């Protein structure tokens, strides 16, 4: 018996090594086959890097009051600031350099989007796996709740929560998590249901492996591909949802200005022709969201051949 188990573990290990070698390479080469997706990934990585190193490549910290001069307010792109540097993208109503403001805003937007997406992914994944594995009444109840929530648009769910909870960074993240977890739960449950009925799960159960180990070591890794795809697209959703809420004035507070807050601040100047205060943060938001979506779209084609023959071509 122990021999059999050892053999089984050995073959499991072998399968894993094969798995991590060739399919990954194939995946990489397939991904870079698409020019659009490669460019989108390059732009996305540049944006992330710019956001991370923002403090070292911007002329001012826009939220350090000592560095901001009100006399610099509402300057058009290319104007020179009072303290000597050039404001290539102009400045906002309070005299903050927009280029600096956008990079700092990107940091906030990206981290809120990624964080809420990640928490929602963890919760959704756990719930979805549980539902698929437990089956029966538990699955019924869980999926009823998921379906019920999915019958409301995510933006409405988030807005309702904000209406109930009030403003604040933690509340925004909570609202985004609640608005998103059901998408992950549904995705994971669908693929976990397929995996659960496969022979390797049965074999694992016969070997007396614990439920937790079966779920997390055997079923979960096989559900990751669709999860990554949904995760990418949902993160883009989360970023634009947060921007929308912030724009409406019920999102991020003025003290942690994400791109949405910057756009909202510029809105009042737009009608008087000072377009840049809203437009440049908006372009930054746009490029971020669109490049994430393009990467996610192509990931779906590459990671799931079954979908790419149907839905992929329909584009």
């Amino acid at each position, binding site marked *: 018996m122990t021999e059999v188990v050892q053999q089984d573990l050995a073959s499991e290990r072998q399968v894993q090594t094969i798995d991590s070698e060739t399919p990954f390479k194939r995946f990489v080469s397939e991904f870079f086959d698409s020019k659009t997706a490669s460019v989108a990934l390059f732009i996305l990585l540049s944006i992330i890097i710019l956001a991370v190193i923002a403090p070292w490549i911007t002329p001012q910290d826009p939220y350090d009051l000592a560095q901001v001069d009100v006399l610099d307010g509402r300057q058009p792109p290319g104007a020179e600031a009072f303290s000597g540097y050039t404001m290539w993208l102009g400045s906002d109503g309070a005299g903050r350099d927009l280029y600096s403001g956008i990079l700092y805003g990107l940091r906030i937007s990206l981290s809120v989007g990624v964080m809420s997406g990640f928490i929602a992914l963890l919760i959704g994944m756990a719930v979805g796996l549980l539902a698929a594995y437990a089956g029966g009444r538990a699955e019924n109840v869980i999926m009823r709740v998921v379906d019920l929530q999915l019958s409301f648009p995510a933006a409405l769910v988030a807005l309702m929560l904000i209406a109930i909870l009030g403003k604040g960074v933690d509340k925004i993240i909570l609202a985004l998590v609640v608005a998103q977890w059901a998408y992950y739960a549904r995705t994971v449950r669908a693929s976990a249901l397929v995996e659960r009925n496969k022979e390797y799960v049965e074999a694992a159960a016969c070997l007396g492996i614990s439920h937790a180990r079966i779920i997390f070591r055997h079923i979960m890794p096989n559900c990751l591909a669709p999860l990554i795809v949904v995760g990418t697209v949902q993160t883009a959703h989360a970023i634009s949802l947060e921007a929308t809420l912030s724009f409406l004035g019920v999102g991020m507070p003025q003290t942690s200005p994400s791109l949405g807050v910057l756009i909202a601040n510029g809105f009042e100047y737009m009608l008087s022709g000072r377009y840049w205060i809203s437009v440049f943060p908006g372009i930054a*938001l746009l490029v971020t969201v669109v490049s994430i979506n393009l990467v996610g779209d192509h990931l779906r084609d590459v990671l799931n051949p079954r979908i790419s023959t149907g839905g992929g071509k329909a584009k």
Partner: protein
Amino acid sequence: MSVFIIRRLLQAALIVFIMSLIVFFGVNVIGDPVYMLVSPDADQADIEKAIERLGLNLPIYEQYFKFLNGAWQGDLGDSFVFGEPALKLILHHMPATFELAFTALAMAIVIGIPLGLYSGLYPEQKISKGIMAGSILGFSLPTFWVGLMLIMLFAVMLGWLPSTGRGDTAKLFGLQTSLFTLDGLSHVILPALNLALLKISLAIRLTRSGVREAMGQDYVKFARAKGLNTSRIILVHVMKNIMIPVVTVMGLEFGSLVAFSVVTESIFAWPGMGKLLIDAILQLDRPIVVAYLMIIVLFFVVINLIVDIIYSILDPRVRLQDQGA
């Protein structure tokens, strides 16, 4: 069948009840509206009076029962800010929202279906690829950002269309509507286009995939073999078949149009219930927030109920599955 409908009705009622609990307790646990509404130099007696008047001195569960009892009779409390019944305020703002949503829906169908038809018929053409790229953008771009761009382009730079408000309204069947005056129409175009953009993209995709699927079917080949000209095949035979799913889905999207109008109304200062909600959230006007959320929940529950029932009529398997569960 009637068992199925009764079950669904009970479920819907349960959902509305649970939501009323969540919404009411959620909203009433946060914030203190008294300090927003009583002027800062009011003395203690004035504050007491205001609390008394607003019913805030009662224990929270009593406030809830009062609310529930009132809700049953169509009274969802008075707005703290306006001093009028919240429900009346929302119903007063509802026609504007519905007008916007209907216009957007019409735009989505009128613009989306022909574009989808074209790109489905000639998928390899440059124009088709452009249409599809546009629809991807339509899905990706945040609504509020597109709204800003529309204002900047058409209102500020070109000066063709007004960017705020509803314009002149005319009375039709006792409802004020902007759709029958020239000024009103010019006001509705931008916000409706903004709201419609996502749905235009959706209509393009649905129509396109429907057309591509239908063009390979036997009945199309047969019609060709019979010698019908292409325009008749497409406009009569293909369209008839793809319109059913497209129109169904678009109809279902009406609910999400009403929900998303919150964003559009705020940008274009459109006096609908979405703008009322945002203003109420910012001013901590709890009765309005509660009333809006209850109405929108009710609205969605009713839409879903109708969809469920229609589906169960069209597809008996849905009904049987539900009974088995």
